[in-house]
């Protein structure tokens, strides 16, 4: 049996039309991960709300994982962060909106803040569903970054637990890495050669990481490596959409400076226009 990586899962809930779907998704995942689910409600506790929630939990058709409900008051982001720390959470699940409009900005900004500060992994669900829609294909980034190894291994773990069958490891090769500007046929040939060299180098790097994946997982999950050319962080979302993947696994962002907030990059692109469910690995 593989090591259990997620033992406590936290979900932030609010009484919205999506409540049932959110709770069902969280319960399902916790059951698959064999983890304890902590549902954190931000807002005043009332008997009516309590009753509603219990009813939803009773409706859950499968075996219930162990679960608790916390009722906290305060700023949503702060409350959830504190809960993650105090409960020693491994995964935080958030129901996000697919695109952050101006009106939805407030909610979006909570998700953003959480993804930046959260000490554990964060899963953003764009379309939680009451029925189970099996996750079958995931995309994970293979950027040259010290966190990439963790992200790829985590992706295998999550997919294996969820019973998904296919994983594409995407290496985004940015134009700057190619370094040769294409002006004419000669420079084009040169840049094609450079690109091929980068591709092989990246491939061997990712393959080294793949040797660390437990046999049982790598056998169960069909995996391939796809180099893509485009803007770092953004293109992988586009790729996931083109390939109709169900889950995108990304590294957590590096330390955020003021610069990063002014000029959106990497994760910011994905967060502002969620292509699929996104798992951010810390």
């Amino acid at each position, binding site marked *: 049996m593989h090591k259990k990586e997620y033992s406590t899962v936290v979900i932030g809930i609010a009484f919205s039309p999506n409540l049932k779907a959110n709770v069902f998704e969280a319960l399902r995942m916790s059951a698959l991960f064999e983890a304890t689910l902590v549902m954190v409600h931000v807002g005043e506790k009332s008997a009516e709300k309590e009753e509603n929630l219990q009813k939803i939990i009773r409706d859950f058709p499968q075996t219930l994982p162990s679960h608790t409900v916390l009722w906290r008051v305060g700023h949503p982001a702060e409350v959830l962060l504190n809960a993650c720390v105090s409960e020693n959470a491994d995964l935080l699940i958030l129901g996000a909106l697919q695109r952050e409009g101006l009106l939805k900005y407030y909610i979006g900004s909570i998700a953003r803040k959480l993804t930046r500060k959260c000490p554990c992994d964060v899963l953003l669900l764009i379309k939680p569903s009451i029925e189970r829609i099996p996750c079958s294909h995931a995309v994970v980034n293979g950027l040259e970054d010290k966190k990439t190894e963790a992200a790829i291994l985590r992706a295998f773990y999550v997919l294996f637990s969820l019973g998904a069958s296919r994983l594409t490891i995407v290496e985004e090769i940015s134009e700057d890495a190619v370094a040769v500007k294409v002006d004419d046929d000669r420079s084009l040939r040169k840049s094609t050669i450079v690109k091929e060299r980068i591709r092989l180098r990246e491939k061997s790097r990712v393959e080294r990481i793949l040797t660390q994946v437990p046999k049982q997982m790598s056998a169960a999950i069909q995996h391939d490596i796809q180099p893509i050319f485009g803007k770092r962080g953004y293109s992988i979302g*586009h790729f996931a959409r*083109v390939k109709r993947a169900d889950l995108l696994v990304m590294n957590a962002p590096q330390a955020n400076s003021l610069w990063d907030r002014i000029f959106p990059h990497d994760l910011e692109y994905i967060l502002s226009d969620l292509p699929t469910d996104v798992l951010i690995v810390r």
Partner: protein
Amino acid sequence: MARPSFFSGIRSNLFAGFVVSLIALPLALGLAVASGFPMVAGVITAVVGGVVVAVFGGSYVTITGPGYGLVVVLLSAVSVLGDGDMYAGYLYALSAVILSGMLMLLFGFLRFGALSDFFPATTIQGMLSAIGVTLLVKQFYVMLGDMKTKGTVLELITGVPDLVKSLQWAPNGQLYAVGVGLISLLIMLFYSSITNRFFRLIPAPMWVVLLALGFDAYFGIVGGENPISKKLLISLPNDMLTTVPSPNFTKWTEPIFWGFVISITLVSSIESLLSIKAVDKLDPEKRRANINKDMRALGLATIVSGFLGGMNVGTVISRSSVNVNNQATNRSSNFFHALFLLLFVIVFQDQLGRIPFTSLAAILVYTGYKLTAPAIFVRMYRIGKEQLFIFLTTLISTLLTDLISGILIGLVATFLVHVLLNKAFWLFSRNLIKPNVLMYKETETQSYYVGVIHFCTFLNFYKLKAKLDMVPQTEKVVVDFTLCSFVDHTVQESLHSYEELFVRKGGLVEIIGLDVLETDSSHPFAVRTLRPVQRLRVFSLGKTRRQQQLQALAQEKKWSFIESPTVQTRQLRSFLGYETTSVERVLNQLSSPCEQLSLFDIKYSEGVFIAKESVQTTLLRVVLNTRIPVFSFDREQLLEKLSHLAGFHDIDFPQHPAFSDAFFVRGYDPKLVRNFFTNDLVSFFTAYGFYHISCNGTELVVRQFLRPATPAEATALIEFGIALKKKIDG
């Protein structure tokens, strides 16, 4: 590939250079006069351009020299800056020319070669037509012997009847000149429709010069004076090659001066860039010009030319195409054209002085007419009413104000039209700065996939272009607009020239995803917008290029083709892997005569409500005569989805372990499916393993990608369907 030496193929280049210089001579003289520059300036421009660009340039068979577009801007620079004094204005204009050369040099170093890509195609056309109108009207006056007229274009146009009337009192000296001018215009107009081989040996502008010289020679032989008055004959100063004017930079503090510098640079770069790109398509050796290097060479040449008293050096399309037609192979022909030009001016200085201004003006009237011909208006209208609107807006505002304001108004108009067409400003405002292009090499087909999202217009075309430029033009590229909701005319026109370039080099650009976007025009490059489904009834009249290709495919196979979307009653749910789909629309349907085989683009959604996902793809449907077991076959488990929940499992084939490992075959009854897959079928399916096949017992659906198929892929799919049906039905 070895770099061809500068002097290789010297004979053909020498000849090409000679022919080009025959055209370049009258043009150089005429363009200089029309710009308000001394006549010799045109020759200086062409000579300096020919020498400098031949040495430093980055293109192969282009010819450089004074351009048409510049005439209008330079003339207004000379008259405005000189404030009436033409010579003083000329010296000021020279300094503007030198500064614009420096700007172009800078652009070249900063790699702004793509400058012209930032302007919508229609706006550029509008600007060029405005230049054409100005050239046409101003030179029309000169052609009728009126050298002094000033005024705005509109005043000049309304003054034409008076001008024609005034001819009846004109002195004979002027009337003869007008006669020569009019005959010259007729030569220019009808040259292309005369097929006589000997007549075609000499290019049209040279005929105009020969006509003028012949006219003069006739009076020389009969012993009289040339009846054209001296004032209307061109005159080259004797010391033209020894005295160098000194440019006057003293106006550099005035904003209007910089306005001219910018307009000159803009017009010169745009004209050159358009020409370089056009010549790339003519080059028989299919080389790709280094645009930035060429820009640097043009900038340098312009600086030198300005200091010697010449105009901006630009790349010129008509002279370049004559160059290519005369078998030029490299830049040395440009150099030879410069040498011959210099030689002509020195040797025939006396003869050149017998050419009347009116004949040179006739050449420019014709050029101006070509830039603003009614055919251009008709073409704009065909592409779409909104394009005609943008075109006219740019044209008129350029005429009424100046070039920079005109082109800015054109830009704004284009953007507003796009917003109105989409009825959504947010589409542009929200997605403008987001990167919108993804490129990767599809591992299965080894072709490049370029996906575009949100919208694609002149505003962000450069991003797509940067990706396309990185693909070797011998490869296959699929440009996918399925996730795009708006694609404008500029993008489609530019993509079309990519299609041509790739085909010339043995590659292929295929565009998919435009068919579902709607248009009101029948032109293949019309703007296309995604509109709500309920408006589908009034679907487009126009076919995209992909639709045209599919139609050609249908004709070749003698199949029927219906491109308009049909209301779909037939569903896919009986097929394994398509259980949760709900068909939204079917279009571009190709059907075999008995409807046993059909290929169609389909849009269906999977799942319901929030889990709903839309898919656009191309399916092949095969109706079988025999009944076979229900099964699905694919390599990537994409058809799996829900089937394993319903108790379907991967069927093993003990006799074919390799096949069993590589593919996923599912079915109700493993035994029946195993029996159905005979050795023969196993090897057949293995060979076509990249298709996803699903069978409901009597029909098969086959799919390759989760995106619409390109015409080439559609052809392959049909061939596969025919072979498959034969295999199963026997």
